[in-house]
């Protein structure tokens, strides 16, 4: 199904929002290319939902602008911004069938009866719910309700699609399937989309770009691979994926961690004690070879089978380290096995404070 409206650029310029003494957004800047799906990822309270609601017009900004398709809509009320929105819960009107829900927006836009009925059928077909057109919200599962909500939002051909944690209230299994559905539909329709979530797996799986937010601003904005493999700040490194925090010393453009020298992402970091952030995939585990005591020798506390990969938790005496390896390499390693760890020589990020960045 093609859309009559090509993707539209959306710009958030220097947006800020404060309420009851708390700064929810602190000069947020974001430019979304036409047809792009940008995910705002962060812990609760980071401002991602506030940013979304400012774009929607459901909150008033204290400063900054929202520009949709070149038009400054900062002072335009929500019902005139031509947005489409999907909420986390209670999306659908309970007294209307799926069909009536989807038609409702078009009815408000004064689309003729025949035309809006046809478009509603098409949209419900697009989200795979043709068999449920006459059902009410309380007759549908959570996943089906959200699909109807998506159809309803897209039926009015909005300039930008806004999704406020649409999968958070659903079962894990439904979540994975539905997020792929959402991406498929979004690509087909081509609407610029802003997707807010606290689940990093969702963000990494479907976004063109991910903006990791913390305390009212974006810490890093980039493609999912960059966010994961080249985190720009300790917060991003710790929020996205798992991280081991290993104490070490920065010396000469490298960090010495437990007897090994690892290159730095930022070679010009100041010298001195620091915490190296090492991904579990960068840690390998060996149960044979030289097992004499050393900073990287310890015993396994637990192994967790995750399917294709497995996670091994090792007690090194003073700290615990997480390693992630392909399940085929786990072999005979089990609780109590004595193992030796080795660290891949990828460049690492370092953190200075003892306090961990806010966990997801």
């Amino acid at each position, binding site marked *: 199904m093609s859309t009559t409206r090509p993707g539209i650029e959306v710009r958030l310029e220097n947006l800020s929002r404060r309420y009851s003494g708390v700064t929810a957004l602190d000069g947020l800047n974001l430019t979304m290319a036409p047809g792009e799906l940008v995910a705002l990822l962060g812990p609760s309270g980071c401002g991602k939902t506030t940013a979304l609601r400012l774009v*929607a*017009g*459901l909150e008033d900004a204290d400063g900054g602008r929202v520009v949709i398709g070149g038009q400054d809509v900062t002072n335009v*009320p*929500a*019902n*005139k911004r*031509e*947005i*489409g*929105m999907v*909420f986390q*819960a*209670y*999306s659908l*009107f*309970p*007294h209307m069938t799926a069909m009536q829900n989807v038609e*409702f*927006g078009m*009815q*408000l*836009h004064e689309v003729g009866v025949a035309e809006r009925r046809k478009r509603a059928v098409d949209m419900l077909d697009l989200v795979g719910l043709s068999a449920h057109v006459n059902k009410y919200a*309380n007759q549908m599962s959570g996943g089906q309700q959200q699909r109807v*909500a998506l159809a*309803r*939002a897209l039926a*009015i051909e909005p300039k930008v699609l*806004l999704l406020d944690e649409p999968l958070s209230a659903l079962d894990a299994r439904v979540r994975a399937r539905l997020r792929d559905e959402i991406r498929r539909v979004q690509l087909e329709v081509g609407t610029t989309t802003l997707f807010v979530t606290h689940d990093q797996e969702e963000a990494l799986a479907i976004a063109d770009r991910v903006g990791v937010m913390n305390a009212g601003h974006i810490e890093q904005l980039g493609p999912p691979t960059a966010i994961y493999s080249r985190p720009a700040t300790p917060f991003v490194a710790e929020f996205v994926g798992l991280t081991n925090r290993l104490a070490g010393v920065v010396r000469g453009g490298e960090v010495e961690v437990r007897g090994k020298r690892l290159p730095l992402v930022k070679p010009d970091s100041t010298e001195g004690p620091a915490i190296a952030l090492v991904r579990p995939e960068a840690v390998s585990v060996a149960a044979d070879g030289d097992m004499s005591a050393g900073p990287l020798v310890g015993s396994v506390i637990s192994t967790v089978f995750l399917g294709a990969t497995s996670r091994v938790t090792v007690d090194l005496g003073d700290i615990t380290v997480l390693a992630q390896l392909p399940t085929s390499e786990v072999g005979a390693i089990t609780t109590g096995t004595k193992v030796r760890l080795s660290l891949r020589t990828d460049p690492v990020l370092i953190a200075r404070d003892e306090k961990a960045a806010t966990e997801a």
Partner: protein
Amino acid sequence: MTAAGNPAVTGVGRPMMGGRRLSLTWVGAVPFLAYVGVFLFLPTAIIAVGAFFSESGFTLSNFANLSRSYIVTATINSIILSAVTAVAGAVLGAVLTYAIATGNPKGVVRRIAVSASGVLAQFGGVTLAFAFIATIGQAGFVYLWLAQHNLDIYANGIWLFELRGLELVYLYFQIPLMVLVFLPAVDGIRPQWREATESLGGGSWHYWRYVAGPLLAPAFLGATLLLFANALSAYATAAALVNQGGVILPLQISNAITSEVGLHEPGFAKAQAVVLIAIVAIVTALYGILQRRTARWLT
């Protein structure tokens, strides 16, 4: 001693003969059922029987007597009074409910408002009548204050002790009752529905016309019916306030029991009671149907 041998555990000391077991268990419910049978069902039966039967068997003469003009007037007055206070109480109560529901759900204002509604809905009868007499009776401070400012509200008659006075006084418990009954429905309206309407291009008018209005309509209608039944059944406030004999049906019933007429025509009061309870029953049944619709959408 094994469990089987312990007499306390085998049960109420009932004889282990198959058929008798069940009846002794039922004995436990007898006191309650007997009491309710005598003091709840018996009076109801007396009314039903007395209305439809006389010494000569089944008769509808008691109901025929209801066509006496003063009964017809009283019944019409009752219906008007109940309808007026139901609709006015529903509308005013809905406004108050909206003000309560849009506040902080855990806030002080809400808790006070809800508790106050619970108390005021029960606050009726004699004390309420006296309160209004103390307010706008001829010695009441509000009346006196208004009179001092050249506003004699009784210039055309002292309406406080007539039907119009009852309409005002009844609102004092009808409005809180409306709040109690309607608030759960209004609470069930999710903020997402308003925001969804806006995102789809609708304004306030569209929201109320297509979303909140239809969703709340059954609850509102049901609550109005409940208020109607409540006003129809009320006796004490009117008895304490109104001096002229039997302006509404409950007062006529009272006359029929306590006066000479009642002694000579025992079925008369009972027939009136049957009419009153019939209307209340029908209205309450309709309320029940509307309640189910509301619950489906707003819980």
